């Protein structure tokens, strides 16, 4: 690596050094309490997948270039040069970490490995060594935000075709749009994913509840966050914030996408609207009696997979359980404490990388499979697109023989008047 590239990468590293990041970089005692926390280590048993080992890959570069002793006595902390080999290590560490933050529950200090991996991801972007597909997807999202008029007509046509499907689930009053779009003054802006499965059940639920809602032109997923690019993350987020402000909505409801929910909830700052997940909204409708569901619709025991970014990292823990208490009498917890629910193994952009990561995803999530099997459930519900894809892949690979269902779809399918 030439000195100029290294200097540029170190500048990027320096840009990440806020108070929290320095605390995470300075505090570790390498006690090893986090050893059993990571699903990858628990499934594959290799030391390089222990949270502190990943963190040290970043920390050793920090010691070398940002601490005096890295110059005076580098070997005492095994400080490392930033070079091609280090970039390879950063890649392995960052893209085998799903950012589930389960290790934070174990660490006596609460060190956030996902934060440390965000440095690794940023350095990889700087060195043009990040997974290209994630950057491309992020760029596409940003481009769509810039030139919405180009996409508008196709989008509206596509949505029109979905309305009949929504009406099959819940008949709206004559003259009312089953999927309202660009309604200024609506109470709720729903931000879906690019796919009918993310729009139809949610629309049926909103219509059943008599919600004054409107559908966002943008998809919720934030590929900027997956690839670890703070600028792109913000640009993708701002498209939705601007739309919500333009339509003067009181609430932005994010579809079943963990990263989209966490980014919107925690990074949008103080806004004139509140941010909710579709799961919270459905729980609210049930609590207020605005929708009713048929408890006999789903047969067999049901368990729930807590998407990490929604539960442990987003705080939506009780709402899905409340919904499921209306959908089944045989609900089975997979972990006694939601904080300890295993990650599905698909987060951090791994599912978005598709077939390239499939083998690793299957091997690294064996503990999740064991956890689901131990419940004896016939239905595995979840509330995140990534988790759903990964759990479906695991279901096929390990022959778990469960139905992997979106929670919002379960609600929509069980709606009764």
């Amino acid at each position, binding site marked *: 690596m030439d000195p100029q590239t290294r200097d540029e990468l170190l500048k990027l590293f320096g840009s990440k*050094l806020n108070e929290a990041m*320095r605390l995470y970089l300075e505090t*570790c*005692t390498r*006690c090893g*309490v986090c050893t059993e926390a990571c699903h990858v280590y628990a499934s594959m048993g290799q030391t390089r997948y222990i949270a502190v080992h990943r963190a040290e890959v970043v920390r050793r570069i920090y010691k070398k270039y940002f601490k005096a002793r890295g110059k005076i006595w580098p070997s*005492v902390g095994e400080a490392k040069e930033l070079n091609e080999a280090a970039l390879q290590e950063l890649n392995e560490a960052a893209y085998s970490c799903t950012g589930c933050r389960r290790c*934070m529950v174990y660490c006596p*200090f609460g060190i956030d490995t996902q934060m440390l991996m965000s440095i690794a991801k940023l350095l990889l972007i700087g060195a043009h060594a990040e997974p290209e597909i994630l950057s491309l997807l992020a760029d596409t999202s940003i481009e769509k935000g810039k030139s919405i008029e180009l996409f508008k007509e196709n989008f509206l046509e596509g949505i029109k075709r979905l309305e009949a499907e929504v009406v099959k689930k819940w008949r709206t009053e004559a003259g009312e749009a089953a999927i309202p779009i660009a309604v200024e003054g609506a109470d709720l802006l729903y931000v879906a994913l690019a796919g009918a499965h993310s729009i139809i059940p949610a629309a049926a639920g909103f219509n059943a509840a008599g919600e004054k809602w409107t559908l966002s032109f943008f998809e919720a997923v934030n590929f900027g966050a997956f690839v670890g690019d703070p600028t792109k993350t913000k640009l993708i987020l701002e498209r939705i914030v601007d739309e919500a402000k333009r339509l003067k909505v009181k609430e932005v409801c994010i579809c079943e996408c963990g990263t989209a929910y966490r980014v919107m909830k925690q990074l949008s700052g103080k806004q004139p609207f509140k941010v909710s997940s579709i799961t919270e909204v459905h729980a609210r409708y049930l609590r207020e009696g605005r929708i009713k569901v048929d408890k006999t619709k789903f047969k067999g025991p049901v368990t729930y997979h807590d998407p990490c970014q929604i539960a442990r990292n987003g705080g939506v823990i009780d709402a899905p359980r409340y919904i499921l208490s209306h959908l089944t009498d045989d609900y089975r917890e997979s972990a006694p404490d939601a904080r300890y629910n295993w990650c599905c193994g698909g987060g951090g952009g791994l599912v978005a990388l598709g077939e390239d990561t499939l083998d690793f995803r299957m091997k690294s999530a064996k503990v999740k499979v064991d956890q689901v099997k131990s419940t004896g459930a016939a239905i595995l519900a979840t509330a995140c697109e990534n988790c759903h894809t990964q759990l479906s892949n695991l279901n096929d690979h390990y022959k778990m023989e469960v139905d992997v269902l979106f929670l919002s779809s379960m609600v929509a399918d069980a709606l009764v008047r």
Partner: protein
Amino acid sequence: MDNVIYFIMIPMVYLSFGVFFFGTTVRLIRIFQGPKHPSTLQIYPQKKPAWLYALYDTFLFPTVRKHKPLLWVFLIIFHLCLLLLIIGHLELFSEIAIIQVIPHEVFLGAGYVGLFSLIALLYFLFRRFRSPVRELSVPEDYYLLILLFLIVIFGSQMDWARRWYGYSSIDVEHYRAYLSSLLYLKPELPAELSGMGHSFMLVIHVFLANLFLIFFPFSQTMHSFLALPINKLRRG
């Protein structure tokens, strides 16, 4: 040799404390003057008041108790002993009435505090020789534990000699004369503390402690100051 002993016992002590205070302050300023993270970094479910739970996490290590109970036992023993040893050293400056509510001979713990610290330190050291902690450790982790072990053993043997073997060539008043003279910037080294006999153990103890203080701001021991704010981040 007298000059070496004098250097270790007086100028080096000032130098070490200087590096410790200056280095620690600069490092803390460096860390806390950085911009705040724009979003919460907490883990849910949230428990309130967050600051109280952060204190609980910092001082009682509940996650270690849950996941590594044996390590937790030794951590609690070690940190309690450390607290008692700090109190004991403060009592070597002058008598502290409030601590004498429990009447005791300096140090608290009748010599067992040092002994338990050593056992805990040996445990910490030996667990680093086993996989996977071995692969996770860096030289600093071993050096610090070895250094602490040596500091405690040389310090403790002076306490043990006085209490358990009646070897009383140095008593508390000699320490108080020495340490208070350092504190009031009129350094004096009583002859009882600077000889080549038993008191040489004290010189080694002070030398190693000086090294520890110099290394402190640049090592993982900074967790003493950082554990609370970092735990607060997790609690929100």
